[in-house]
């Protein structure tokens, strides 16, 4: 029996380090916990109804909104979070460790709390929201903009953390060398720093996009669930689950498909 479990090795290849037997059972349990529910989704779906469910106006509108907002949130994350990562990795500013910790806040905070915080900051009576409303006539909560903001709040740390880690790992040796070759800071950034961390930037982008796409808690608190405006796919799944389970499952499969695509295409490295 044991020969079945043992992977065939090429002669001369190095033996793997032994894995203690007691670890195999919980490891299998962990895999089951991840895979079985997803497989269960596929079992639950009615293949005959699937095409109709996937192309229903509600599903299509949610998909369009989700893709649009997640792309925007990823864009905002790059434009703001990218520079933040560079500053945290390269500059000498006081309290940098504290700032680095603050960036992790949205990662550990329940998204609902984030949504609530955004609501009280940018709501009509909030300190910033009141100003926006009075001076510019702008209302942020319960708009598509609110969705993008909520997604950015939750997803941007993924980009900052992975990019900052890559910058610190790359070190400054090449940048110093570029300076001796006559390259100023901006040229060095464009031609040395950025290309060297490009793989990390791409994987950070993918993670950020995936996180933004799946955002639920902060969105529903700060932006509500208005069809066509703020009801993204996860929110649509939640709403439909109470009326038409099959429709909810169909939309869930859509999210699973996108997630698989992300993993296969971009293979994001673990954040950390």
């Amino acid at each position, binding site marked *: 029996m044991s020969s079945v479990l043992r992977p065939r090795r090429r002669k001369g290849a190095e033996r793997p380090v032994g894995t203690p037997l007691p670890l195999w059972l919980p490891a299998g349990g962990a895999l089951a916990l991840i895979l079985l529910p997803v497989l269960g989704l596929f079992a639950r779906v009615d293949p005959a109804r699937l095409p109709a469910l996937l192309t229903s106006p509600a599903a299509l509108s949610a998909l369009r909104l989700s893709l649009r907002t997640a792309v925007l949130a990823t864009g905002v994350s790059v434009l703001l979070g990218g520079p933040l990562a560079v500053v945290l990795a390269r500059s000498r500013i006081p309290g940098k460790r504290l700032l680095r910790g603050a960036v992790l806040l949205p990662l550990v905070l329940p998204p609902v709390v984030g949504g609530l915080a955004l609501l009280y900051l940018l709501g009509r009576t909030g300190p910033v929201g009141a100003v926006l409303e009075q001076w510019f006539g702008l209302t942020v909560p319960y708009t598509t903009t609110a969705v993008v903001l909520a997604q950015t709040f939750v997803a941007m740390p993924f980009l900052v953390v992975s990019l900052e880690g890559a910058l610190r790992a790359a070190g400054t040796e090449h940048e110093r060398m*570029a300076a001796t070759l006559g390259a100023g800071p901006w040229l060095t950034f464009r031609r040395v720093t950025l290309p060297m961390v490009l793989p990390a930037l791409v994987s950070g982008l993918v993670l950020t996009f995936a996180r933004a796409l799946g955002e639920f808690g902060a969105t529903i608190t700060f932006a509500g669930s208005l069809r066509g405006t703020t009801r993204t796919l996860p929110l649509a799944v939640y709403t439909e689950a109470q009326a038409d389970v099959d429709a909810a499952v169909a939309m869930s499969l859509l999210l699973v498909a996108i997630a698989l695509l992300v993993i296969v295409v971009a293979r994001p490295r673990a954040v950390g």
Partner: protein
Amino acid sequence: MEAGPSTGEGLSAEVRLRRPGFELDVTCAVRPGEVLAVLGPNGAGKSTLLGTLTGSVLPEHGRVALDGRVWLDTRRGVDLPTHRRRVGLLAQRPTLFPHLSVLENVAFGPRAGGDRARRARAIAREWLDRLDVAELAGRAPARLSGGQAQRVALARALAADPEVLLLDEPLSALDVDTAPAMRGLLHRVLGAQRTPCVLVTHDVLDAVVLADRVLVLDGGGVVERGETGRVLARPRTSFTARIAGLNLVRGTAVAEGVEVDGVTVRGGTAEPVEPGEPAAAVFAPSAVAVHRAAPEGSPRNVVEVRLLGLEPRGDTVRLRAETEAGDEAVPLTAEVTPAAVAELALKPGDRVFFAVKATEVAVHPLSVG
């Protein structure tokens, strides 16, 4: 003896810096085309001195000027950033940009200097060709050997047309088989350079082959400085003697070795050297055998010397001696066992024969300033 930093031609530097447990106080001047070797043990302040020149270290007191243009003057608050200083740096590790091809790496400097891509590549090709690595142009840095990468790094530094060349232990990361080839290449390249050059090294051989003058740093201060041959042949401080350590016979390269005053010291060539060029025969004191009568037999170099002194060091005795024949006395040292000293009844003033096998002698080209 050179003077302190001047405002004349070449590079002049004056650095004073104090850190907990470390102090550096150095002045030096390097003329155009001259190579100054900065020798010293780890922690002597060599890297800090170099960092002050590149601009990566800001000393408390310092002044660096090139051809009268001031790069750094702490009293007047002048501190040019690295990219405005035009220093060419060859470090211990090649530090090639991993995402650029060899050609693009070398073209980086010219492009940063404002050349268009085409022109920059043409300059890069020229330098790769000059350093015999033209065939590597299309390669990625990850696919180069250590010696190849260091050659490319040298090409990259030179292609940027630096006004000062800084070599920071350029051979210490190479293995024993590739270091001599690189040392030979540097000898060739530095001989043709017209910029001031500072070479930081802990290997006396690098100074012998590459430098016109040496500056010996110890504990953050200059303990000795002057023309390479003189400092290494007649060290005035015991510290320099310790780092010099090797016997160094300067002369002219011939097919079998080095000719000095009509006498040929036979040895094997370490770096390529053309007959007729200045060269040095280098051998360790421990390779020298001492005889009362002239020995015969296997191919060896024998010379009569007068003993100047005997210095016990641990379980060996170091014999300081000088040749008697020829126009100029050549200082030599031998390291023998106390038993040999007793057996031969050696004492200062004695005339004895030093013998060293040709296989123990390495012939190196010498820098000509």
